[in-house]
């Protein structure tokens, strides 16, 4: 089970989002909070490391990482493909 708090902890390690990580709501757009393309790559790498997964290419879209809720769903789908 991936919780929003797990995701928020990873956002707190992201250079761009660290200062605001705790104030980001589940559905807030991370891109509006300043996440850029490099930031999102760093975020993807951190998530892969933290959850021991690899996101397939078709998941590497802006939408999959647009918000905490979206990331939670993306990670859950990769962790438990049959449940998706």
């Amino acid at each position, binding site marked *: 089970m991936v919780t929003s708090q797990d995701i928020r902890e990873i956002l707190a390690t992201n250079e761009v989002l660290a200062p605001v990580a705790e104030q980001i709501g589940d559905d807030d*757009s991370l*891109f*509006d*909070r*300043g*996440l*850029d*393309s*490099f930031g999102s*790559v760093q975020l*993807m*790498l951190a998530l*892969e490391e933290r959850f021991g997964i*690899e*996101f*397939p*290419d*078709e998941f*590497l*879209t*802006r*939408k999959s990482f647009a918000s905490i809720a979206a990331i939670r769903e993306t990670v859950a789908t990769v962790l438990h493909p049959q449940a998706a």
Partner: protein
Amino acid sequence: MSTLAQRAQRAATIAALHADAVDRDGRFPLEAVTALKAERLLGLQIPSQLGGEGAGLREIADLCCTLGQACSSAAMVFAMHHIKVASLVAHGLDSAWHCHLMERIAQEQLLVASSTTEAGIGGDLRTSFCAVETTGGVFALGKDASVISYGTQADLILATARRHPEAAGSDQVLVALFADQVSLERKSVWDTLGMRGTCSDGFRLEARDIPVEQILPKPFAEIAAQSMLASSHLLWSSVWFGIANSAVDRARTFVQAEARRQPGQVPPTALRLAEVSNALQAMRAAIVSALRRYEDAQGDVDTIGSIGFSVIMNNLKTTASEMAVDIVQRALSIVGLAGYKNGTPFSLGRPLRDVLSAPLMIGNDRILANTAKLLLVQKGGGQLMSA
């Protein structure tokens, strides 16, 4: 009714007539742009229900190539205009104000310019210092626009700015400003090696009391990712292909004239021509395959926003820009002094100076650095026909 190709060819013929003067004087290709308007080529992409012709990027790319063979500056102005129009068509159909704007562009053949570059930020499209300051139903914007190509000749400028004065640098919007709504104070002059007619001067841009409806509702982040990056790389590459193509045409004519003078022998330059025709074909293939990818992805937000797609478009830009320079230089080595001299049928000075801008316009190192980051997460695989 003429075909699109015929209309483009008529405009290109006029562009070619004035290309040397545009280059020599570093002036706007007015005759060419007037011809583009007369042939009604500025509203092509706009949907037919809004008075345009609903043309796709493939048609525009072909026109960029046609114009690129005649006058690089006119071709680049045409490409930059259509990159902005592509963004309006992709992201403005939900906004009544922007639909009306598109009707006007098609009806009045308005020339659209872009203001993204800003002093202190350089070419980083996705960061702005300046911000929209809204009061009631109107906004003001002041921007140190270090480059606005054909800024004083455009009928409309689409400018990026932060959404509001407290917004993050990347939280941007795209605002539409008519020429009579802005004041442009020239701060620097575009006096360059090539592409001299794009008149990419620097300005202080000031706009006041602009209705908020003129702010495109979609976040600029989406506009950049979904239409601007891909259409820029595709259309610029098509312009460069046009330049390279015309250089190879001159080299071919030169080699064939040599062959006619010495019947029964293959001139030594023919081998170099074979090499350059090989490179030209590879360049064409790279552009066409990327254009197909873009067309196949139309309307699919996830595909266009994906890392794999960004890598393809980035690679197109770096590849096409380097190949174009290489091809024109090879063509020059074939025609020799006749190409080095101005005013001969084989002159290649202007195209060479123009095409040298290709690796620098959005520096290839910047693009490669961006690709390098994306490759940290992209996975491999794929097949010949689908990857």
